[in-house]
């Protein structure tokens, strides 16, 4: 695997996220940066997808359940050629295809209209079952925020995927430790997350969510059960004054912060 290529893609994604959010004056930059390396690894080295044929039946499915990280997904899709990078400038502008949350019917490469939390996981269970019925080798991936796991629908999906032993399904948890206002541990503790998934019939892989090699291995190793990849990430990753700060959940950088962030990202 070419980690250099993945890290270049991740850097470009972060720069596009920064431009896009600064230009729109809105966005969820903290969660976008925490999930960037996961998206870069998936789209750079794991997913069987074709930007020129985004609906080919046997494609792998990536469902971004944390739909508020739309700008990270849009930036990734644009850089991978699903639509022009230029279009990112329209994000959140009146009548843009690029809404605050992704729309499958307007944006090539988006699989489902996510936004309300706890929706992506059941959908990915459905695409995984569909691939098994169709016997076409398609794999399904769902990316969730950690706070999102407080939604009960996820555990309905986890229980059923475990029961069906879906070996073509991987759930990735962007475990940045924060939800909108405060740490997940303070709001409604998720740990021991690994034991919860194990008891639901899953194999668990805990990785550094910014380590491309570790992510790649976790996302491609053969499975005997559905797999959860608990990706330990840092909210705001890549810009030192944003890292681990709850207020950067959806804060927009000032002109000075923008320049400072751009400088840091350019040097990575």
């Amino acid at each position, binding site marked *: 695997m070419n980690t250099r290529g993945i890290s270049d893609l991740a850097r470009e994604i972060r720069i596009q996220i920064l431009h896009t959010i600064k230009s729109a004056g809105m966005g969820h930059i903290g969660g976008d940066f925490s999930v960037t390396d996961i998206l870069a690894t998936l789209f750079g080295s794991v997913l069987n997808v074709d930007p020129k044929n985004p609906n080919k039946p046997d494609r792998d499915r990536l469902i971004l359940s944390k739909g508020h990280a739309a700008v990270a997904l849009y930036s990734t899709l644009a850089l991978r050629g699903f639509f022009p990078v230029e279009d990112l400038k329209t994000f959140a502008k009146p009548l843009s295809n690029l809404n605050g949350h992704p729309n499958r019917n307007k944006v090539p490469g988006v699989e489902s209209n996510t936004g309300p939390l706890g929706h992506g996981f059941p959908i990915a269970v459905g695409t995984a079952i569909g691939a098994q019925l169709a016997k076409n080798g398609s794999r399904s991936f769902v990316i969730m925020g950690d706070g999102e796991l407080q939604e009960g*629908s996820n555990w309905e999906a986890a229980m*059923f995927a475990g029961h069906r032993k879906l070996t073509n399904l991987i759930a990735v948890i962007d475990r940045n430790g924060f939800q909108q206002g405060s740490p997940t541990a303070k709001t409604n503790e998720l740990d021991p997350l690994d034991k919860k998934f194990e008891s639901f019939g899953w194999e668990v892989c805990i990785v550094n969510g910014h380590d491309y090699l570790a992510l790649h291995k976790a996302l491609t190793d053969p499975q005997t059960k559905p797999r959860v990849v608990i990706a330990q990430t840092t909210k705001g990753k890549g810009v030192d004054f944003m890292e681990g700060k709850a207020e950067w959940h959806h804060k927009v950088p000032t002109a000075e912060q923008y320049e400072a962030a751009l400088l840091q990202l350019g040097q990575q």
Partner: protein
Amino acid sequence: MSKKLEEFDNRIIFAKTLIALANEDSKIVVVCNDSVGSSNLTEFRDLFPERLIDVGIAEQNMVGVAAGLANAGFTPFVCAAAPFLTGRALEQIKADVVYTRTNVKLCGMSPGIAYGELGPTHHSIEDIAWMRALDSLPIVLPADEAQTAEAVRWAANMVGPVFMRIGRYKVPSVSQGQSPAFIPNKAMRIIDGSDVTIIATGTLVSRAVAAAAELKAEGISARVINLSTVSPLDTAEILAAAKETKAIITAEESVTRGGVGGAIAEFVVQNHPVPMKLMGIDSFAPTGSATFLLEYFGLTADSIVASARELLKHGK
């Protein structure tokens, strides 16, 4: 006075039609919530074990899984008791199915007050109002066996989401040999008349037909429309009713607020106002069987007749 008509359980023809469709098309699958028995799907499961996905008692997951199956190229029929399908999984229906425009067929089994004595938790009287609020979701309420078979076949062959109600208790045929019995997006005028129009849905259609016969004996000419598709509304037929008859009665096994009566009233008041009476179930029901509750809420031929007399008296 009239001889007892033969009655049919629409769930039986529903299941038969699904099996026929599944034989023709390998993309037809069923998703349910521990509802194989109540949805009459035992035979389907025996014939197509891999294509019946029973998620257990988990409606949010059920609808999400169906959306995923549709994304994977399948045509899922979600078969679940109407109150739990539409109530518990409303946001999944909104976001994963209707907004995403996935090819999911939502089949609300045993709707209205079909579960009688089980009480308001198990009654589905709000489903039509909830589904009607969603953008461009077809809502189909087959009134009898023939309509159920044709509507299910239509739903399987059109691409996009649909919500349909499949009744539990037996009802007589109202299609009276008409072919087709169900026309998509069209209201079915099954009796013509010039004094008053009765627009009925689902289980209430046969009662509207009986009411028209009683009114005829009194010299009142009642038109009966079987509104088997509530969304999109057949506005031409409703406008004709408003212009050509003096009053409109709506009859449904659901709340009229936002329900079928609400839909008709919204259109009539903006286009050709006429006196109206909305008949439905606008409160949580007391204990009783479905038959008792239909009487209790005045959803009978006699009550429809009384409403017609009252409206025409005021209209003069």
